[in-house]
């Protein structure tokens, strides 16, 4: 059966990708939930993912969507920005609908990340995953999509616990954001919203999927040692036995009084594990002159400053490389807020936007990204879903 497309009179923007349907609506339009639901009309949906600007009434949105979309499960989170038609978006609500024709999905909600013994959740996750697979033997491909409260500080533990439950299913995801306010972040599932929670959505499809991450940082030769920190709260107090922010400013050649998110975005630091360098993104400087990080840190850690390459061309090339030789995929992405900030600072936002548009990447900006068992920063993680040749709609 063919999907019918009815043009909307209202301001909801719908795009039919190769495999899924995307709809976006400005936050201040009337009844965004209804609009989005209408946008999806005519498509039998297996699952809907929603990324909402913190400006939205997230609870109402989730409730409304669940009601409107009926039996179809809806999961979503607050963002630090949206990615959709037009590239980097602000103040939008972006929804991705997975048609039942090509997809099957199951979502698992994990609450009380701070208190829960996460290892107990593993069983649930495994059961759900296996059940999904068993019911969809003709859809052997798939992935797991994580949305987690970005202020929970529990992403590392969560991902660590999740990993054994995944089997061969690749995981990616993003931490829910709160613009640049860093105050409240929510995850929503089936009409309800939660703090200190996470949703894991298992997706099964016959289409080829490829989970990926893109990171344009190049380590420099400048290193520093974290001499004092509070790992629980991801706070670095001293670097090189000097106050953290101050020392950081010195090392990156900035005025310690003028450290802002732009600086942090422009001068990230990386930790080397094995052969690889992982970005440890700095969220902010607190009033004590400490640096608050977006990801796990520890005393005695050696950090290396990084230099960004040209983000736009790097992203373009990376996606090209990813797509090489195959049909044009749908791409769902979790993009670090810091990348957006960097883009703004370097005024390459439009270039990035064009790249994002060109590759029809849809998603949201995050307070952190998950790829496999790792919680990372300053990265774009995502999944590319390649249509089968007879399924290009």
């Amino acid at each position, binding site marked *: 059966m063919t999907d019918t497309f009815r043009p909307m009179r209202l301001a909801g923007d719908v795009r039919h990708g190769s495999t899924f349907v995307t709809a976006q609506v400005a936050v201040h339009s009337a009844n965004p939930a209804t609009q989005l639901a209408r946008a999806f009309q005519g498509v039998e949906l297996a699952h809907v993912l929603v990324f909402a600007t913190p400006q939205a009434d997230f609870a109402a949105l989730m409730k409304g969507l669940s009601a409107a979309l009926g039996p179809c499960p809806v999961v979503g989170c607050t963002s630090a920005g949206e990615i959709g038609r037009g590239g980097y978006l602000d103040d939008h609500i972006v929804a991705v609908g997975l048609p039942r024709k090509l997809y099957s999905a199951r979502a698992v909600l994990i609450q009380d990340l701070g208190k829960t013994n996460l290892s107990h959740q593993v069983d649930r996750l495994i059961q759900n995953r296996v059940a999904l697979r068993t019911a969809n033997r003709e859809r052997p491909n798939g992935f797991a999509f994580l949305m987690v409260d970005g202020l929970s*500080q529990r992403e*590392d533990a969560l991902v660590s616990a999740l*990993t054994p439950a995944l089997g061969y299913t690749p995981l990616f995801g993003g931490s829910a954001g709160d613009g640049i306010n860093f105050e409240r972040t929510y995850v929503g599932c089936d009409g309800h919203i939660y703090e200190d929670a996470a949703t894991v959505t298992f997706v099964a499809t016959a289409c080829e999927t490829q989970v990926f991450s893109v990171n344009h940082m190049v380590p420099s030769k*400048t290193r520093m*040692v974290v001499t004092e920190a509070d790992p629980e709260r991801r706070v670095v107090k001293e670097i*090189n*036995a000097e106050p953290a922010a101050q020392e950081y400013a010195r090392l990156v050649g900035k005025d310690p009084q003028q450290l802002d998110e732009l600086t942090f975005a422009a001068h990230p630091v990386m930790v080397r594990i094995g052969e690889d360098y992982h970005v440890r993104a700095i969220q902010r400087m607190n009033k004590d002159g400490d640096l608050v990080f977006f990801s*796990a840190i*520890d005393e005695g850690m050696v950090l290396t400053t990084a230099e960004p390459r040209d983000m736009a061309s790097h992203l373009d090339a990376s996606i090209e490389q990813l797509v090489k030789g195959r049909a044009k995929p749908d791409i769902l992405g979790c993009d670090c807020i810091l990348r957006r900030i960097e883009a703004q600072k370097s005024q390459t936002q439009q270039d990035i936007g064009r790249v994002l548009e060109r590759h029809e990447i849809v998603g949201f900006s995050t307070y952190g990204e998950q790829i496999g068992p*790792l919680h990372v920063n300053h990265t774009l993680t995502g999944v590319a879903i390649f249509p089968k040749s007879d399924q290009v709609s």
Partner: protein
Amino acid sequence: MMRELLHPDDSLERQRDKLLRISAALMQRVEQTPSNASAAFSQFERAALLEAEVRQRTNDLEKTLDLLNQSNAQLAEANQETETARSYLNEAIESVNEGFALFDNNDCLVLHNSRFCRDLLDLVPKLENGMSFKNYVKKVSQSIYLDLPPDMSPDMWVKNRLRRHKDEAVVFNVALTRDRWLQVSEYRTTLGGTVILQMDVTNIMRAERAQREELVDNQSRMLRATLDHLAQGVCIFDKDARLVGWNRKLEELIDLPLPGASLGMTFDSILNLLRGKMSFGMGFGRKWLVDWSNKESGRAPISFEVTRGDTQTFDLFAQEMPDQGFVISFTDVTQERRSAKALREMNRTLEHRVNERTEELGLALKEAKRANESKNRFVAAASHDLLHPLSAAKLFLASLQDRDLEAEAQDITLKAASALSSVEGIIEALLDISKLDAGRAVFDIKPCGLDTMLQSLATEMAPLAETKGLTLDTVSSTATVVSDQVFLRRILQNLISNAIRYTQEGRVLVGVRNAGDQVRVEVHDTGPGIAKEDQARIFQEFAQLAPSRSGSNGLGLGLAIVDRACQSLNHGLDLRSTPGQGSCFSVTLDRDTRKADADEAHGTDLPNANAIRGKMTLLVENDLGLARAITLKIEGWDGHVIHCETGEEAMALLDEIELAPDAMLLDYQLGAGMDGVALCRALWQRYGPVSTAIISASRDASLKRACDEIGIPLLRKPLDTVKLRMFLDSAAT
């Protein structure tokens, strides 16, 4: 880069403190355990490390999988190729016209095509790759489609087959039921495997058989034609003494078709049919014949006679054939016998006549002899009686000559004396002649040298020749001849004086010619010659040619004496003459070739060198080869041989020809009939005690005793030629 670690404005102490702190932090980190580590970061670290490792491993795995896929692909390709090759191979061997099977070097079946053992329908489902050769052979031997020879069990067949399998290459035929044939060939491959090819040769075998049958047909047609062509009647029996064939001539000869005679009749039954009509010759009874025919093999050839009524006689010859059957040939010898009989009659008549004539001649001869003798006696007596008055007359004349007489009277006495001398000569000549005639002349034969004799003659005759104005030439010779010297001189003297007498002018030549073992003394003259019609006459008494011309006083006795003397001495006397040209008288003498003692064998009593010549020997010998050899020998000695193989045959034959042999050579073992000794007795009964010898290979003492009893010699085989000759010689004399 380490410079950045410290603030450039820091004092050294500060720097030191800072460095200490940094070192402490690092050390702590390095030494940290899971319990005091920050959970989040260490989780992250662990995860990152694990991730890196996993990535590495995944990479390796992917590479390995790639390689594996490659190998799999190659393997698949290779398998494909193998499959393709295999299917080509299978196609190929399927398309081959023969059954094909390949066993590897462990003697396990590797592949075979559908034609393999196709005719053994019960074997085909049991053929499977991997089965051992032994198993395969065993199953073949058990197939109901295999046509085993009646004396061979399947196990024996298996044994034979496996024995053949050891050879490098082997080809043999296998018989299947319903007259089908497979030609099976096995070849060893270079890898030690075996290839078996099976070709259906049924058609070839059948064609060959048909050809053979046609050939046999042709042959039997030819045989029939040949048999029908023969002048003899022939009948052929198989080894069970059943009639399998006869020719037309036989039908004619014995008035076949015999009622009820047909192929397959036994010899016995046929004899039965002929019973009334045939009678057998002596010694060959019907029972004996049947026994002979019933022998399974090893029948000796026999021949015998049968008569039919008294009109027809047949010679039968029976012989065994290579297939243990036998053949009997009938030859109608009626005519022959009749001719033989006629000849015998004629012979008898002739002999009778000859005897008569001989008697007549004998009488005539006696008469002649008597006449001759009386003549001789008369001549001798007369001459003798004449001699007395003659000598008296001579004496009286001599005394008259002594007296003194007138010339006229003297002349008359001389003439009278001459006349008396002539008369004396004539009387002596006559005496000689009569002596020669009566055969009472005694010769002293010995070597005579011609040289001296001729010289003396030349001297003696020379004046006489001179008187007539003739040349007398003598060509002498150193030859020595064998003769009576006195008579030879007289002969030569006579011839020379005759030559002189009858030649008016010219010469007389006396010469000696060599003639091999003989010597010819020739007397040539240039006289008037002697015409052919006169040549015989001149040797008669008192014959003279133109006596007036001779001017001699001879009575014409000379040549008569020469003739008789030459005859008695066995010297050749020849005359060659051409009237008007001259004559040549020649005497041929034997040369004396012996050095020392003259042998007395050369005389008138030359004994006959060959006693056997013309004598007939009966040879009864059943060994044909030996018989032929003996015959040849005896015939080489100018004897005659009658050969029979059996005693019965010999007796029958002698009966026929009604001749008694001069000698008999009897083999002791003569087959089924009588033996040599019995035969000797039987023949002696019939023909008297003919000289007989037994010949035998037997060294048995009892045989010697038997021979001794009868009193005949035993010649052992192999025959000693000298002994044989001696026996025959003694028999001939």
